[in-house]
């Protein structure tokens, strides 16, 4: 699932899809945390809390990212990353 996310992140040209890939990566990390926490340290809750944190941060991050995407759309009238290439030398 993690590498599915990475693959999507690198190959998709649509910013919304890239954002979705990022969410997939985060979710894969969450599941990993839960699994490892359950099997390696069943008496501790660190992994659980980490997952909760990630979910909260991911929500905020999604909001910010969508705001950025909207702004990019207003500026360039596209959400294709290859067309958004002004930041170069």
């Amino acid at each position, binding site marked *: 699932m993690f590498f599915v996310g*990475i693959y999507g*992140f*690198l*190959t998709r040209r649509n910013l919304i899809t890239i954002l979705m890939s990022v969410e997939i990566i985060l979710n894969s990390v969450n599941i990993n945390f839960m699994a490892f926490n359950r099997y390696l340290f069943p008496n501790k809750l660190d992994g659980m809390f980490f997952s909760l944190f990630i979910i909260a941060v991911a929500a905020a991050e999604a909001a910010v990212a969508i705001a950025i995407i909207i702004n990019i759309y207003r500026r360039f009238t596209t959400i294709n*990353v*290859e067309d*958004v*290439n*002004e*930041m*170069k*030398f």
Partner: protein
Amino acid sequence: MINFTYTIWILLIPFLMFILLGLAGHKLKPRLSGLLGTGGLAIITLLSYITAYKYFFATPWTDETYKAITAANTVWLQLTDKLHIDLGVLLDPISVMMLVVVSTVSFMVHIYSIGYMKDEKGFERFFAFLSLFTFSMLGLVAATNIFQMYIFWELVGISSYLLIGFYYQKPSAVAASKKAFIVTRFADMGFLVGILILSFNTKTFDFITLTDPSGPAITHGGGAAFLGLSVMTWSMIFVYMGGVGKSAMFPFHIWLPDAMEGPTPVSALIHAATMVVAGVYLVARMFPIYVFSAPAALYVVAYVGAFSSLFAAIIACTQTDIKRVLAYSTMSQIGYMMLALGVSGYGGHEGLGFTASMFHLSTHAMFKALLFLCSGAIIHAVHSNYMTEMGGLRKYLPITHFTFLVACLTISGIPPFSGFFSKDEILAAAFDHNKFLFAVEYAVAGITAFYMFRLYFSIFWGRDAQYHHTPHEAPLTMTVPLIILAAGAAFAGFIPFNKLVTSNGQAFETEMEWVVAIPSVLIGLLGISVAWVMYKKTSDIPDRLASVFRYSYKWAYNKFYMDELYLFVTKKIIFRYISVPVAWFDRHIVDGTMNSIATITQVVSFRIRRFQSGQLQKYAFAFVSGTILLTILLIFLWR
């Protein structure tokens, strides 16, 4: 013990005046700023006289010996536990004497400048600089330690630079000020080296400790030998080098004639009466060290002085610019003072040369300032510096004529004017110690009388030159200082210097040495009569003489080509063989390294700038692949 703490104000008043006039001067009326500067100087002069009276007459001295008093002192820089640099006021016979001389002449020059500089642009700037100069000169005189002296020594150099370049629109004045500054700066480097060696050897800067005949500096001085002379001797020679530069002795004299580009009151104050005798004062200040630890350095002092006085006197005979004649005459007279110090011993009658030197220093300050101020009045009246364009001025400038005559008689050593007494003491001291130097100085005395009266006769007598308008006497502000200084020059000879200013602080008896006095008066009269014959009426004798001795005359007229020699040495040798390679090294090696670093960075960055494409996913790809690579590496290397 009398409290002398108030002497600190002698230094502070001119400094405050400098700040006031320098910062707020342009807001004041010019006349007011002139009056302020002069008023400040009046207070200082008064304070100096009070100090002198209290020091010499009102303080109860044990054993009738004048001792040095530290009137005020603060530690300024603590270098190590023992070695520290102080700022303060030191009073002993020579510094008290110098305080009086400097403040008197400076006061006269201030009054004179009100008239002379009237309607000049930058009137208040001039007075600000004069105050700065007075401050630094007094600080130099009153220095408690050699480092303070060095600081004020440089300040004096700066104010001299500013005042020579006062007419900064004139290229020649700017060149002269730069020359004066660079030459004296170069000599001061020697002074600094001397100070460092001296303080390294003796572990102190303090004058009282240094010059105590039974103190560690003198008894444990000497140190290791280098090239046959002790380290102490070398350090004193280096210190003397600073004195040579400031006092315009050969070979660092070349700046003094050019310094005459400054306004005439400046020439009178700085380049005749006060700053240029700083070198003499320096040697006098360190005198016990010279006598006890470095007699070889004292020889150098004597011979440099003698040579400079002869050299300058000969040049003075051929110059036509009156200020330049006076400049060379100054150099010659300072040579006298140096020589007197050089032939002096310590204590009692042996120390006659020391007393004579200080005596001549103060009389010279009077009469040479007078001569310069007179020449200022003449230039003011005729608008020319060249004596070929003058003549018959005695009818137009009676007061200037009279005072100039007094000054000429004084410098020629005709009794009862003060120059007679001081010069006679110098000659007597030389006669006792070194017959050769005596002969040189004897000849110089005659030459001095000759060139001074050459100047006098060709300015005030002879045929009337063509003037643009009838010359008129200078205003009262200028003539009053002339008269006061003339009185000083005439009667200062009766001050009993042998009671007041001596090498060890104890009075000794002198009597007229008729063996020396009579011939010296005679040769003075001889010089005057030769000048009388040649210049009283316009005659062709000078021209004929000049053509007979064509080559030597030309040689002397061009100041023995010293300037050309300096230019040759600096331009052809130092510039070509030292500066050019150094400049090449700087441009190609030092700059080259820096430039090549910059070039390489630039080339490399042009190569790699393509990586920054703006494509977000390329960055992400690089980031992810990099992470994977690092992870693999870590996993495999960790094992």
